[in-house]
């Protein structure tokens, strides 16, 4: 038994170390690439100075525009997806349980329809939006991004709602005279905090990483700006990619740890009681 266990430990250590190396090498290379002048191999921080030194040039303007659009769209997608999904899911759970399978199906559908397929059908929809309803501003793409985020937001909210006693909470609040908005914002939202936080982070990650829709519909977001900049200045593109990828990893790891700590606290409290 002991022999089996130690063999298992070695197997685990070797495999996981190899995996870590395999996943970190490209990130390290990205860092290296961003500070190395391509032809001479000389190390210089020009790309980072250009990014954070406060200078102005066309590439940076494009990048600022793309980043600005992506951030605005991320905020819009967060508001729309939560505003749409949270009340619907609460309502369906409390009053229309028969619809829950339908809502789940619709929310998970975007996982099975490739984005490149969806964008072919979105092109005429956005033609109408940009000519008849709104205008051709990039930020209206946020409406389509909500669809891409739907599966992640649904899963986060679903596990959050599973963990609380929705019926008791809302009926108690109602019988104390709370209106439905009060129930939603002052009773349910505080209880769903970690589910909401994780759906916000997922939405952020999806929107900041989105390329297909923006590229195919000829809009400027962070990723299409990066794509363009890379054609003329690979170092800046590498530096920005590193910041965004690293930022996303740190964001999601932190989120996961926060959730884990809270769980542990809840468990230990339950253990004492």
């Amino acid at each position, binding site marked *: 038994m002991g022999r089996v266990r130690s063999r298992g430990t070695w197997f685990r250590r070797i495999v996981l170390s190899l995996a870590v190396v395999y996943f970190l090498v490209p990130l390290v290379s990205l860092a290296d690439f961003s500070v190395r002048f391509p032809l001479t191999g000389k190390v210089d921080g020009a790309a980072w100075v250009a990014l954070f030194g406060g200078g102005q040039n066309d590439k940076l303007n494009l990048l600022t525009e793309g980043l600005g659009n992506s951030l605005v769209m991320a905020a819009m997608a967060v508001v729309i997806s939560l505003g749409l999904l949270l009340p619907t899911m609460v309502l369906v759970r409390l009053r229309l349980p028969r619809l829950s399978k339908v809502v789940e199906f*619709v929310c998970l559908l975007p996982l099975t329809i490739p984005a490149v397929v969806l964008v072919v059908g979105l092109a005429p929809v956005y033609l109408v939006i940009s000519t008849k309803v709104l205008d051709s501003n990039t930020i209206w793409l946020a409406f389509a991004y909500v669809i891409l985020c739907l599966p992640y937001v649904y899963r986060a909210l679903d596990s959050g709602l599973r963990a609380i006693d929705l019926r008791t909470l809302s009926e108690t609040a109602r019988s104390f005279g709370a209106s439905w908005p009060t129930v939603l914002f002052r009773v349910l939202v505080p209880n769903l905090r970690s589910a909401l936080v994780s759906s916000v982070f997922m939405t952020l990650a999806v929107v900041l990483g989105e390329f297909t829709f923006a590229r195919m519909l000829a809009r400027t977001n962070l990723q299409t700006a*990066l794509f363009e900049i890379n054609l003329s200045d690979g170092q800046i593109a590498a530096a920005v990619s590193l910041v965004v990828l690293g930022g996303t990893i740190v964001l999601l790891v932190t989120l996961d740890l926060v959730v884990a700590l809270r769980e542990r606290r809840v468990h230990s409290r339950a253990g004492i009681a």
Partner: protein
Amino acid sequence: MTAVTTTTGRDAVHASRPVLPGAVNALGTVPFFAYTAVFLVLPTVLVVVGAFQARNGAFTLNGISQLLSPRTVDIFTTSLWISALTGLVGTVAGGVIAYALSLSPEGSLGRRVMVALMSVTAQFGGVMLSFAFIATIGINGLVTRLLAPFPALTPDPGFLSSLSGVALVYCYFQIPLMVIVFLPAVEGLRPQWREATENLGGTSWTYWTRVAGPILLPSLLGSFLLLFANAFSAFATAAALISQQSVLVPLEIESALRNENDLGMDAYAQALALGMILVVAIVMALYAALMKRAARWAA
């Protein structure tokens, strides 16, 4: 109808409060369904209908006939092949990593960080991932430079924009995706099963071929299908690496969409998209059937 009866049934409990009738409850879901109708269902319908419709709205089989032309069939074959290959590599490598991860203590910091790292690399790579690989094994890449003294090992400058290069980069997001989707299945392997095998005189080999293997097989195949669909749908990574020709279906859709106003391109982009929908639908149907089998051991 049922909604109405359930509501009235529940309301009997606290009849003092005026409660929304069932129809009003159902009205509450209208925003959600209206929104998804416009931005999810309508585009999908437009793709399917558009595959048979010329620009003037008349019925046409032009798109479908182009879809079945030898050139397009070639593109589909390449896409299917690269998805199968990277799916296979991802399944094997990711499966081993998932098993190794399942051996590490549950809830440990390292394991959590690893899973989070995997979920980022699996889902949010795209363009940036391609840059990372250009920085690694591109012409001026880190690994290329480190390997420069050994010409035999140095990657070819054009490697990344070739199909094998794209396949390599795909593996980078396929492997972590495999880890994420397969981890729950290997976590479900109970130590008692192994102990029972050993008590009955079975070796490690017996355990894997006669016990764990058959239990894991449906999830393993199911995960492979997910990976297959994932690679088949990937666009950003390929777009950032291959700029010259459309060798994969998503790239061909991009160029078809761009040249939509050319004569003879009627309904082509939609027909290509319809082809993709069909492939993914078949894959997902198989996946659903396999998951039903896998669920037997989940309890």
